[in-house]
């Protein structure tokens, strides 16, 4: 996983690119599921582009302090402001979208066509 954990950039890049940090602790099933779910979501719903940084706390425990990480996995959206935290394996797509301030499925397409 750590090979993939290098800043994985996908989609278009523009000014308000989403910066995401995914905190995991070793390669647990929950962490793997979270990463998979995240990629799928971002590809689908983040037209402005995104960047994912994966932080393994087993390797860098001191990094947990910065974002006040308790739950694993935790997804932190550091940009755009405000900072948002989403915990869990990101299996509940709707809640993840709400958490990331992304447009949900139905209106997303409508919005796109409108623009």
């Amino acid at each position, binding site marked *: 996983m750590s090979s993939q954990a290098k800043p994985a950039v996908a989609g278009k890049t523009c000014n308000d690119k989403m910066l995401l940090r995914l*905190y995991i602790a070793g390669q647990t099933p929950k962490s793997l599921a979270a990463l998979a779910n995240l990629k799928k979501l971002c590809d689908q719903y983040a037209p402005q582009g995104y960047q994912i940084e994966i932080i393994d706390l087993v390797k860098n*425990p001191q990094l947990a302090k910065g974002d006040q990480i308790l*739950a694993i996995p935790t997804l932190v959206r550091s940009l755009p402001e405000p*900072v*948002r935290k989403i*915990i869990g*394996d*990101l*299996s509940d797509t709707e809640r*993840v979208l709400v958490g990331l301030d992304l447009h949900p499925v139905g209106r997303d397409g409508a919005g796109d066509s409108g623009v």
Partner: protein
Amino acid sequence: MPGNRLKKDSILQGIEKSPSGIHGLDEISRGGLPKGRTTILCGGAGCGKTMIGLEFIVRGAMEFGEPGAVIAFEETPEEMTRNIASLGVDLQHLVQTKKLFMDHIYVEPAEIEETGEYDLEGLFIRLEHAVKSVGAKRVMLDTLEALFSGFQNAGILRAEVRRLFRWLKERGLTTIVTAERGDGTLTRHGLEEYVSDCVILLDHRIQDEISTCRMRIVKYRGAAHVADEVPFLIDEQGLSVLPISSMELQHRVSQERVGTGIADLDEMLEGKGYFRGSSVLVSGTAGSGKTTICSKFAEASCARGEKCLYVGLEESAEHVARNVRSVGIDLKTCAAKGLLLHEAWRPSQYGLETHLLRIHQIVEKLQPANVVIDPITSLLSGTSPLQAQSMLVRLIDFLKTRGITAVFTSLTRGDSSAENTDLGVSSLIDTWLVLRDIELNGERNRGMYVLKSRGMAHSNQLREFILGRDGVQLVPTYVGAGGVLTGSSRVVQEAVETAAALAREQEIEGRQRELQRRRDALDARIQSLRAEFAAEEEEMLKLINQGRAREDLLLTNRADMAQSRRVAANGSRLKAGAAKGTL
């Protein structure tokens, strides 16, 4: 099988304890908190949970060589450092010297969106990092319950908390977890269900506008402990838990006697004074001279070169010093020599327990040989008799175990009996002096007697207690038909008695003189009678001789006559002649 079990028991040998180093806490927990286990400190807001936890960690790091890790959920390390700085502890220094690790875990529910499965591995990782970075043996989680507000999935949370406690135990970390008091439960989120090795409940109560913090060990698995509620105090010296009175009555007993400072009082107590280490109660109404007796004792203590603590609860030190100066007691010099510590504070300043604690602290610091508390009754106003008694029992017990001679005064209200102290401690007191007012003939005088004094043949007299410019005297009173005479009545009585004695003496002398006179008169009469008799005797003898002479003459005459007759007659004359010839 039984052998096996025995072996196991000997291995276990009770649980190991981590000393907290906190004054009194180690006593009630009989050695400290369970080592390698988790202790819950629960209580309401403001009762000192964090302070106690921090002190445990800090003392562990400083005194017992056990580094600590503090995970704070509510306060930042900076805030904590500032808070405990008031106790004179520099957390920064401990952090720099790698004896302490502090981490602040901030949980903001509004920022968190939960989607699907998660666990709290992040917490474990941070905890492990904290423990590893200083090699911590002691851990404090202040207030773990913040987690419950941060995460909504109760099922996951409970499982994780359980895992956390197991995790701590597996690593042998002596842990303190603070928790808010719940409604009807020990902790709001039922943490005590997870950890059940040791639960300490803190309680903060306001009674008569005075707050007292109390502590109780609700549970201590596998170890003996004191189960009572114990008051504690957090002040500039840190936390102090009031040690309970020892269960055993095993005071050291001294045969040594200490002077009371009043020669006449010493004399009433077998001429030697109080026993060292005994408790003395001086009770009396207002103005009966209690403070003077105390001050005399304090002065005498200093004169012997012993330290004395004088706790004044009604008058300031200056006041007492000035007032007793008028009866020739010099407390200022004693204080200047450093032998007398006069502490005065208002009784309403603290709660009962705090008073007790303060006295404890001063005694521990000063190590006096004698203690005066004047008056002890003002400590007890407004408290329930039960509390008052328990406080006094503890105080007396404390002083006795240290072999301190203590003099307490007790103010008796005018309307109650002199022997009623309202304190219910009479049985704890070794020597009890009762001062009372005696009103007679328009004046009021002081009287004193020894109500009891254990272990000595004390005087049973009521003495008059006289305060003069040059000191204190105890004068025997007059007990007459009209009652006890004191003051000027006594002086009058003394004069009357002296006069009466003089009169009696004069009367006796007079009688003796009278007797002598009579004897002389008798002798004189005897002399004169004798003289009279002698005269009479002389007269009588004269008469007797005269009679006898006359008889002789008569006989002679008769013979002459017969002779003359025989010349004229016959033979009969011869006879007569013969008779005449014999003549």
